[in-house]
Structures are given as structure tokens and as C-alpha cells.
């Protein structure tokens, strides 16, 4: 199921001596948080889980992988069918059955956005009544489920929450799929800005001063805004919004303090970022941008993971020569071969042409990948390359196979 597309020969040739820990291993040994980021479809979730499993095996300790939206089979493999926010130990018997006996413990948790928001409100609201008034509010539901940054923020907030329990030696977090994969970096600051900003006070002021519903007192500054907004949305809608935020008022300080702490944690030297990408033009271009942004903004860029790459034997000049010969000279070569199932020379020739042609096709893509790899401008010290696997990674054995390349 989990045969790597790369063959054994290459792996042995490039393997380091066993005694030296790999770059990836050293990186994880000195960090408490690894944030895996990258554009959609590059395999972030599998790589995150593989990194956590590898760390639990090689470094020991308690390692948690916090996944956002794992494929069903991966969730099952980690023993997390019915889990919400609760972190659970990946059952040792599952690991043992896959031939894995880690030095440490592997824990897994999934992110439940709604539950996390509710917890946050319950924690920060000034009393239970206010909390439930907020939780029942229609705008609250929309805000937490649709507000683009709310998913990003809550992921980082959960990371902070888990880290501050001190329960884990290492936390590996998968980042939510967003339009811009680095939005989550801004989420804490935006959230602080959102709930704590003067803007909110400015917007709700007319209602606070006016007291009774509908009695707005507009300042000179806010009048033009309300004139426009009223005409678009209707004043009733704005009132609803204002009321909702008035309920939120008691929680501003808690929210802002918290968001600032989350932001600090991401900048902490114990936190590192791993950018995951495939060697396709668009994701790679985006990955390079992430590397730049992370570095310029003072985050620790720890590793670049090149995922789903094609094997080097597709670049072998001898392979190209053989493929060309097979395509051009198929009939003659088919005649020269004998053996069971090879006596229909027309069929053998057709197969030879097909495999030669297929090799040449895949070579074009492998060449493109190699070229993109060599053009990488800014790369962190640790670059891991993971092959395309012949089947999907959906079990612990598969994660371990990815881990072997990560930690190689």
C-alpha cells in the first residue's frame, strides 16, 4: 500500500550515517511547536501527522498532532473517529499492529471550531447569562462560522490553550485551508483589533449614548457612515449588530489579552514553521512567498518539505536512451524477447512502445520538478523531500513511511 515511488537504491545512497540525527530531527528536538503551512492540496495534514509520529518514535516524550480537517481514513488510522476538541492518545495497540513501538506517546486532536468559540465565550463572558445571550445570538453563529478569520484564529487560540497546559513536549499543528494560507498569522492581531479596537466603540457609541433601542445619537464623525449604512442595510440591521457587540463588551479585555498572547507564542523561539509544498509551479511559488513572509516578519522558518515528488530514476539519461529505443525499435526488440506471455510479439511491441512513451511523459514532469527545485531562492536549512506514494497515505504505516523521508 505504501510503496514509495522512489526505489530502494536511491534511498540507501543518500541515507545519512545512523548515528547523526537528521536536520529535521534536530529541529524538532529543540522546538515545542511546529506549524505546518502551505497551499491547499499539498498534503499538509499527512506531513503534520507523520512529523508527530516520527518525533514520538525518535525523540520520545508526549507529542500531539492537532489536525484541522483530516481525511476520514487518516482520522481512523489515528483512532479519532468520534473525537471533537478532546486530545486522545493514539492507541498503542494500533501502533503496535502497524509495527511501530514509539519511545514516547502520540496524541491526536481535531479542531472543532464551533466548540472552541463557545468555550472562549464561556471563559470570558462576565456572567453565565451574558454568555448564553451571546451563544444564542444569530449574529454570533454567523460570525463564528462565516467570518473568514474566525477559523484561523480559533486554530491558533487552541494551539495556545494546549501549549499553556504544559502537557506536551511537542505540538505539531496543521493549518486551516484558507484562501491565503498565511492568513492565520494575522488572525490574532486582527481579532485583537476587531474586539478591542476603537472602531467597535465608535460604532456602538450612538447606541450606548442613546440608551433605548432606536435612539441613536450620532456624532459628527459617525454620521456619514450611518447615513450610508442605513441606506444599504437598513437601520434595524445595524441596531442588531450594535446590540450584539454591546453584549460582547465585557469580554474585550479578555479577548485582547488572549489574542496578544497567541501572537507572542507564534513568535516565540520555541515555535518553528514548516512550509509544505509540491513541486508544481503554483504551490511552489506560494511556498516561496510564505518562506519570504515568515522570515521578514520574524517567525522561525525551520523547514521546507517538498511533498509528492517524482523519483530521480525518471531523470536517468540511460532511462531516456532505453525509452527512446523501446519506442522506435519496439517490433525488433519484441522479436528478440522470449518467455511465457511474450510470444505474441505484436502485443509485446505495443507494450514496449507504451512503457517507453510513458517514461518519456513522466520524465518531462520530473525534469520540470528538478528545475523548480534548483531554482528555489530562499530555503531554510532543513529541506526534506518526500516521494509520491503509489497509493494514498491512510494508515500508520504510510505515515511512518513519510516520516522516514522527513527525518532522513
Amino acid at each position, binding site marked *: 500500500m505504501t510503496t514509495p*515511488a522512489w*526505489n530502494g537504491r536511491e534511498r540507501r545512497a543518500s541515507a545519512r550515517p545512523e548515528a547523526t540525527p537528521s536536520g529535521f530531527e534536530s529541529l524538532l528536538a529543540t522546538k515545542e511547536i511546529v506549524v505546518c503551512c502551505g*497551499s*491547499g*492540496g*499539498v498534503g499538509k495534514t499527512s506531513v503534520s501527522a507523520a512529523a508527530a509520529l516520527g518525533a514520538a518514535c525518535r525523540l520520545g516524550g508526549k507529542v500531539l498532532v492537532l489536525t484541522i480537517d483530516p*481525511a*476520514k*481514513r487518516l482520522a481512523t488510522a489515528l483512532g479519532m473517529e468520534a473525537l471533537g476538541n478532546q486530545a486522545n492518545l493514539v492507541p498503542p495497540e494500533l501502533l503496535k499492529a502497524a509495527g511501530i513501538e514509539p519511545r514516547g506517546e502520540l496524541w491526536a486532536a481535531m479542531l472543532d471550531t464551533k466548540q472552541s468559540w463557545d468555550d472562549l465565550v464561556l471563559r470570558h463572558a462576565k456572567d453565565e447569562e451574558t454568555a448564553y445571550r451571546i451563544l444564542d445570538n444569530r*449574529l454570533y453563529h454567523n460570525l463564528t462560522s*462565516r*467570518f473568514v*478569520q474566525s477559523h484561523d484564529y480559533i486554530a491558533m487560540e487552541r494551539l495556545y490553550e494546549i501549549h499553556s497546559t504544559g502537557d506536551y513536549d511537542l505540538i505539531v499543528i496543521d493549518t486551516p*485551508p484558507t*484562501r*491565503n494560507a498565511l492568513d492565520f498569522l494575522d488572525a490574532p492581531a486582527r481579532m485583537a483589533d*476587531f474586539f478591542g479596537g476603537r*472602531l467597535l466603540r465608535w*460604532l456602538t457609541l450612538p447606541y450606548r449614548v442613546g440608551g433605548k433601542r432606536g435612539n441613536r445619537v450620532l456624532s459628527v*464623525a*459617525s454620521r456619514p*457612515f450611518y447615513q*450610508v*449604512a*442605513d*441606506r*444599504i*442595510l*437598513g437601520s*434595524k440591521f445595524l441596531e442588531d*449588530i450594535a446590540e450584539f457587540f454591546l453584549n460582547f463588551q465585557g469580554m474585550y479585555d479578555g479577548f485582547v489579552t488572549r489574542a496578544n498572547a497567541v501572537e507572542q507564542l507564534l513568535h516565540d523561539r520555541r515555535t518553528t514553521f514548516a512550509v509544505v509544498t509540491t513541486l508544481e509551479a*503554483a504551490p511552489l511559488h506560494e511556498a516561496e512567498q510564505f518562506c519570504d513572509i515568515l522570515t521578514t516578519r520574524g517567525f522561525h522558518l525551520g523547514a521546507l518539505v517538498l511533498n509528492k515528488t517524482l*523519483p530521480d*530514476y525518471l531523470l*536517468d539519461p*540511460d*532511462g531516456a*536512451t*532505453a525509452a527512446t529505443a523501446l519506442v522506435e*525499435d519496439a517490433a525488433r526488440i519484441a522479436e*528478440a*524477447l522470449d*518467455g511465457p*506471455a*511474450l510470444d505474441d510479439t505484436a*502485443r*509485446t511491441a*505495443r*507494450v514496449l512502445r*507504451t*512503457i517507453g512513451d*510513458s*517514461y518519456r*511523459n513522466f*520524465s*518531462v514532469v520530473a*525534469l*520540470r520538478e528538478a528545475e523548480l527545485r534548483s531554482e528555489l531562492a530562499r530555503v531554510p536549512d532543513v529541506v526534506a523531500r518526500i516521494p*509520491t506514494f*503509489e497509493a494514498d497515505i491512510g494508515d500508520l504505516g504510510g505515515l511512518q513511511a513519510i516520516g522516514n523521508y522527513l527525518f532522513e
Partner: protein
Amino acid sequence: MIGPAPALLDRRLLFFTGKGGVGKSTVAAATALLAANSGKRVLLVETDAKGDVPAQFEHKPVGFKPREIYPGVLAMAMDTEASLQEYLRLNLRVPVIGRVGPIARAFEFVANAAPGVKEILTVGKIAWEVREAIEGRADHDMVIVDAASSGHIVAQLGAADSIRELVDVGPVRTQTLWVADLLADPDITAVNIVTTPEEMPVAETIELVARLRAESRAPLGSVIVNRVLPELFTRADEETFEALREPDANAALVGQVGRGATAVLDGARLAVSLRRTRAEHLAELLTAVDLPLLYVPYLFVRTHGLRVTKMVTEALGDELGL
């Protein structure tokens, strides 16, 4: 082919959504080119302003104002603030409020907080461009949208309906009516889903079809399966291939074409297993989704950009019998 797929280009408004990384922009661009090739003028709308859409035509990023980036293909990047300003100017005769000052920020804030405001400004602008086309007032005949990905599209398509639940009165309420109706009209609109024959994209596609049916009135179009690997062998040919991989035959082949023969055999085995894994996902998609499927082959090419757009255009044209 099943269903009314050839009618794809007869609609005025085509959305292309799907999981990130499956090639939405490429497929949207290729469909636009296909339409342009058949003599239509197309407005291609990029909703996330990353510049991916113009890049499919080797063109630099575009702004809110449509620009012709290829003969017959106009492109614009969605910008909710610009969309609001245009709306105010056209509908309420309110002077442009500009980017400066607290008003723009206040708007940004309310748009973030209030459900559906950003979404309605996006679909509202799109619907407006479609209506202009229908009434012959526009420079284009149809609108193709490189839409939000699976996670966001349901909210976007349902925005016009959901905002009416929240807003009791006011121009937005009345004006969202026609937007919602246009988006729900199967003669005008089709929401197409782009996927690849891989585990997560297929799972998301199946889920998205169910969600769109349950939570929106949007008419579904086709599922475009991108990057389909070729089937190398028939069953009988595959037996021959397996025989070639036996040590003796492998050695004989090395004797004929050099030691590179092993790499060629390994490469073919990789191609076969990749294809097989994907075929399973494709089968799952076929069972779970009753929409017409259009296949775009995996392209073994050096580059991306216009060359790829043209190749995908050709593949789509073949699928549609054009």
C-alpha cells in the same frame, strides 16, 4: 456522456469551485477560452485577487475594472470595497466615499462582522454583470467565475437568501431578491465543481454537492475531473507488462536497450499504480455524484500558462463534442 453537459456554454453564468489546488483557475480560464473560440465575449471574474486567472493568459494581474486580456476574454478581480462604491454610485446616487478615513474602515469592520455582506457584494456584482449581458448593455455575453473554494462557496451562493433573513427593510432586501433569483435560475446559472481523482478532492466534491443541494438553490452543472492519468494497458497487455518485469525478461531487455530499461519498467509500474489508485477515487465519485463528468487528462508538459490553458481548452472541447 450523460446529461446536458454540452449546454455548459449556453448558460450566462458559470461558477467554478472545488478544493484548493485542483486547478480551478486553469479550468475556468480554459472554459472562457472555449467560449471565446466559439465567438462569445466572456467576462472572467477572479474572486480571490491572487492574479492566477490573468496568469493563465500570460497577462499581468488585473483590477476591478474589466480588461481584455485575450481576444474575446475580459478579466476582472473582485474587490468588495470597489463593488460597494459602484453599488452606491449606481443605485443610491451616494457620492463615492473613498478609501480614506474611518468610513472605509468602519465599512470593512461591519462587512467582516455582519454575515453575508462581503459575499453579497461579490455575488451582487457578478449578478449585475450577468444582467447587463442579458439586457445587451455589456461588453460581454457571459460571465465565468473562478469562485471561492469548497469551504466558502456555499456561503457565497446563499448570501442573497441569508441576508434577507437578517435585513428586514431597506434597499438591500429588495435588491437581493433579483440576485437570488438569477443565481437560482437553471437557464442562466450553473455551478461547476473542479476536482482531481484523488482522495480528499473527491471527498470534498461529494460533500459539496450535498451541501449545495441542501443549503442553496444554486443549479449544479458539471463536475470537471482534472489531471486524469492515462490508462496504459488493457488487461491482456498488463499481463505482458508483468511478464517483462520478471528477472529474466528484465535482463533480456537490459541486453537490448541498456541498463536504463529497469528505470523504464519502474516508471511504468509507477504510472500503473498511480492510475489504479486514482481510478478507485473516480469510481467513488461516479457512484456518489449524479452530475455529468468531464475529464481533463493529466498534462505531461514543461510549463504552465497559456500553453496549458490551450491544452485544457482542447480537452474540454473534445469532452463537450465541440
